[in-house]
């Protein structure tokens, strides 16, 4: 009886599977028929499906259904099927891939490149590039030698996807302070932490609660989750004149390395945070609150100051804007410990050849693939993936490209739908230029340029900026050429070898940092040095010196490789 039932169930399952497979086949048959008929100069524009495993989740992926997606499909015959990490991390996804020894055609492995290279999963792109990809070679230009994997292995495994020649037109970081605070105090200078502190203190004394009686908060830090790095520890090096090199500080002359919190200057920065806590200006919940709570505090308009990156508090600020409370949104400044330091957020790196796209050994037609990527890197391709289709997403007025207003509106107010429908933002799969680079028609390749930025400012932003005589927030920062370019790019793009002990030491150092920094900040001022000394001692105990030395070697190697 049971066997009969089991048999029946299996039969049912088989039938369903069969039907599903049939359904699939008929779909495939459909797409073959709609294959492109214009052959162009290519031998075959037969439809081909490429599988791409991306290490970044993209909930707005449109399955080639968007305007751009369909255009690409028709023009090149290529359909892309993307896979994303779900629930787990990208590390899991690529680990399984290596273990099963089965690879899709294309991968965007982010930081997992070493795993794939170790497993022999990626092919050397150099011969393909030299023969079939003139556009890609043109985009990378002199930086082509930065694509090389290592000193020992000069193959090119991934094509970095960061824009080449990127110019930053605005600053998203620094220290944020509400417009209403600046207005009431007559737009004082906000250059040092003391200035920042005084502005907040003065305003808080005069206005301790909001209109509905809610207590205001001076400074709230997003320190309860992983963003502790962005809101609490990274500002320490920005405020003391060092650039972002991950958790390390690199001496630009000797390339000696220490962890950035081992610098005496940064101890003083944390001491200031300790002081802010002592005088009651720091949100006591800074290290306990969840991201949601942090955002809702900001959205309530009670928080006078935050130290964060714009993409981290964007959602909360949008809630304020939606209610029209623009004076409670934020202006940002490059605050430093004292006048002797300059914020090095924009210290040059040259082209940062970091995360990219690679072709695997299992790819069926690498030549066709590289030609496809080359198309995306061509001028026509880049304009397509950045701006869209002429007439549909932008128009050309007097030689100048302008985004159609309805499209721009959707981009600003409903970005998710915008991405899914137009496909803009979903097809950055090849080499491309960054912001600020002009194409052959004198227009920008990308849609981020000065006019756009100012157009997206609110009235409150413009008013504040005008009071200081600036056009964009970045104007507060030191000029781009105030610093020497880092010969090794940026520290955070350099990873230890997977088998190295340094990885374990690094993880331990992070655990220690997350324990001691909050403790130091919340401690009694008299105990601050004791806690911080303990912090330093713990780091020594796990032998960070060894890790630092290894990192220093990696940096030196990179400098050598990139200066060829």
């Amino acid at each position, binding site marked *: 009886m049971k066997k009969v039932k089991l048999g029946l169930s299996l039969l049912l399952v088989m039938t369903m599977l069969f039907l599903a497979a049939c359904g699939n086949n008929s779909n495939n048959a459909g797409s073959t028929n709609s294959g492109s008929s214009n052959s162009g100069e290519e031998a075959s524009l037969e439809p081909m499906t490429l599988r791409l495993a991306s290490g970044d989740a993209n909930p707005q992926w449109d399955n080639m259904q968007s305007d751009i997606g369909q255009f690409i499909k028709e023009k090149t015959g290529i359909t892309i099927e993307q896979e994303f990490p779900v629930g787990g991390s990208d590390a899991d996804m690529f680990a399984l891939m290596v273990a099963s020894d089965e690879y899709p055609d294309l991968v965007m492995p982010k930081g997992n490149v070493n795993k794939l290279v170790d497993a*022999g999963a990626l092919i050397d792109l150099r011969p393909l590039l030299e023969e079939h990809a003139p556009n890609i070679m043109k985009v990378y230009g002199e930086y082509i030698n930065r694509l090389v994997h290592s000193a020992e292995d000069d193959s090119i495994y991934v094509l970095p996807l960061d824009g080449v020649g990127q110019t930053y037109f605005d600053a998203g970081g620094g220290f944020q302070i509400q417009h209403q605070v600046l207005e009431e105090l007559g737009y004082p200078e906000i250059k040092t932490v003391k200035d920042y502190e005084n502005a907040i203190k003065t305003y808080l004394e005069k206005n301790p609660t909001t209109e509905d009686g809610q207590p205001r908060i001076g400074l709230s830090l997003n320190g309860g989750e992983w963003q502790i790095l962005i809101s609490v520890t990274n500002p320490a090096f920005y405020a003391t004149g060092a650039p972002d090199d991950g958790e390390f500080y690199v001496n630009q002359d000797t390339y000696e390395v220490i962890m950035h919190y081992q610098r005496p200057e940064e101890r003083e920065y944390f001491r200031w945070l300790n002081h802010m806590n002592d005088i009651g200006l720091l949100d006591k*919940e800074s*290290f306990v609150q969840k991201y949601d709570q942090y955002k809702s505090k900001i959205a309530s308009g009670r928080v006078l100051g935050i130290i964060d990156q714009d993409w981290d508090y964007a959602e909360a600020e949008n809630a304020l804007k939606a209610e029209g409370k623009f004076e409670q949104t934020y202006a940002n400044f490059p605050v430093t410990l004292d006048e002797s330091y300059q914020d090095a957020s924009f210290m040059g790196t040259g082209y940062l050849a970091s995360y990219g796209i690679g072709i695997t050994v299992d790819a069926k037609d690498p030549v066709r693939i590289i030609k496809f990527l080359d198309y995306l890197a061509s001028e026509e391709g880049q304009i397509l993936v950045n701006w869209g289709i002429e007439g549909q997403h932008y128009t050309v007025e007097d030689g100048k490209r302008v985004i159609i207003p309805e499209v721009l509106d959707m981009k600003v107010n409903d970005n998710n739908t915008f991405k899914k429908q137009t496909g803009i933002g979903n097809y950055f799969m090849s080499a491309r230029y960054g912001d600020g680079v002009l194409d052959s028609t004198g227009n920008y390749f990308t849609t981020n340029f000065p006019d756009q930025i100012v157009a997206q400012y609110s009235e409150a932003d413009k008013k504040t900026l005008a009071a200081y005589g600036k056009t964009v927030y970045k104007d507060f920062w030191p000029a781009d050429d105030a610093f020497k370019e880092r010969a090794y790019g940026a520290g955070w793009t350099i990873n230890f070898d997977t088998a190295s002990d340094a990885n374990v030491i690094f993880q331990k150092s992070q655990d220690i940092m997350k324990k001691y920094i909050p*403790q130091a900040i919340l401690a009694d001022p008299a105990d601050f040095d004791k806690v911080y000394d303990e912090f330093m001692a713990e780091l020594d105990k796990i032998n960070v010196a060894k890790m630092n030395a290894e990192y220093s070697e990696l940096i030196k190697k990179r400098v050598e490789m990139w200066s060829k």
Partner: protein
Amino acid sequence: MKSQTSNQNSVAKISSTKRFFRTMVQQKYLYFMSLPFVIWIIVFSYVPIWGWLMAFQNYRPRNNILNQDWVGFKHFIELFSDERFYLVLRNTLAMSSMGLIVSFTVPVIFALLLNELRQQFFKRTIQTIAYLPHFVSWVVVSGIVTKMLSTDGGAVNELLMALHIIDQPIQFMAKGEWFWGIVTIADAWKETGWNTIIFLAAMSGIDPELYEASTVDGAGRFRKMWHITLPGIRTTFMVLFILSIGHLISIGFEKQFLLSNPLVNDYAEVLDLYALNYGINLSRYSYGTAIGIFNSVVSIILVFLANFIYKKVTKESVI
């Protein structure tokens, strides 16, 4: 004489083998109903054990498992000499023991009380509502708990201050020593309703005649609970309890991770999170596997030990 004894021996031997096969044929249906599963479990649970070899190597995914760098017990030694390991082990055992005790007392009491409700509709409604939090993810529940315990208008602090028990809000989530308690209570809130289901099912298997008979004997409700209901679910309770002891070490890390923050991490990090951070996330498959083996060995020892004690006391065995 000698030949007679040897004859007797060989006769006895033949008998016992013959007996074995005879019983097997007698019990053939029992075999039909179980052997397929034996095969299934060997394939799906025992065969993958070859993965444990990784713990004794410096496993790199590219090569075949037999083609690796063998390092013996290096990873285990590293594990046992890491201070942090003992810290997370302590946290794990503390929280799981507290959880074990709570999840075997509260749901039983709750089931007993539910059984005392006479209005069926009310009883069924409460049952259904009580198990709802099980379906709400820990992400949501931890958000609610954090907000309720917050000093910035959190419900618990507001209540305590209104009742004048305290005059300053307490930062519950910042105190490491209270973390274990908070996790246990949050878990009880979320899972009690669900855990009650099995006990209710067991209670409904008790012969109603026993209750009727005791009523005639003049037993009150507490007597009934003590002498009929509780003994009636004893088997189920003990089986679940002993099997759960095996899970003391491997309790996952989601709820602890979501409820924790940098201030309480020394009390919140558990073994599974440690394994994730120092094993898979750093591509150290061997180290991660070593921790897995440690977990399994300890779990199995705990369960068999508990069962052994149970057997000694009650002559019954769970396994």
